[in-house]
């Protein structure tokens, strides 16, 4: 199992850059103030939510890795527990990939928009 320890920092950086992209809602002053403006510094902003998801996925990958390591080094970890944690890690990784696909899809949809 590949440790994804470097992903959270990289992705947090990436999402901050996405937030700062020209055309982001935070830079458009013309939007009426009645709309709830999502500020990038908000703790519940989309990028921080995504960062949280990525770090959760990373944590599950690490748990799976630890379980497999413990199993292989002869610790008292049942086989099914190691396999189940691997499956959980795999499914949550798939979830993350799906979220990323959706994000990219909507970004490209916006970029194709006629001005």
């Amino acid at each position, binding site marked *: 199992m590949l440790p994804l320890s470097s992903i959270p920092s990289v992705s947090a950086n990436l999402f901050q850059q996405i937030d700062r992209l020209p055309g982001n809602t935070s830079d458009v002053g013309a939007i009426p103030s009645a709309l709830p403006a999502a500020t990038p510094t908000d703790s519940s902003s989309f990028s921080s939510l995504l960062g949280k998801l990525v770090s*959760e996925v990373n944590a599950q990958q690490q748990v799976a890795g630890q379980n497999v390591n413990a199993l292989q080094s002869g610790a008292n970890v049942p086989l099914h527990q190691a396999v189940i944690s691997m499956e959980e890690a795999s499914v949550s990784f798939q979830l993350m990939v799906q979220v990323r696909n959706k994000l990219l899809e909507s970004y490209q949809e916006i970029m194709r928009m006629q001005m």
Partner: protein
Amino acid sequence: MIQILTGIQNTSAALDAERTRLDVISQNIANAHTTHDLDGKPYQRRVVVFETALQNAMSGESNGSNLPAIQVAKIERDNRPPLQVYDPGNPDADPHGMVSMPNINIHEEMADLISASRTFEANLAVVKNARSMAMQTLSIGKH
């Protein structure tokens, strides 16, 4: 923690319990002819007792299901009397040539073994199903 495969904790506990049951059965079969247990008497057949337990009550996590899970309550001794076998050459034979053998019936143990392994299989099927349900749900967005 995000709960991707809910209910898996309970199934995992059940798999643990069935594994313990398999261990005890293997111990019984291995000791089918042991005339000296730890207490010096013939080996007595061991039986696993299961009980339900609230999985999340201890950890304090309220996400996920609060359905009761299974756990091993205790490993009891079967109190049926030992089998008396006539074997005058055995060093453990009494003056009449009778030896007290463990109260283990191999056929009974084999039936228990099949039952335990089928239950294990059923719980594995639950895991597989939960996984495929999650993967099918994730494929909603695909086109």
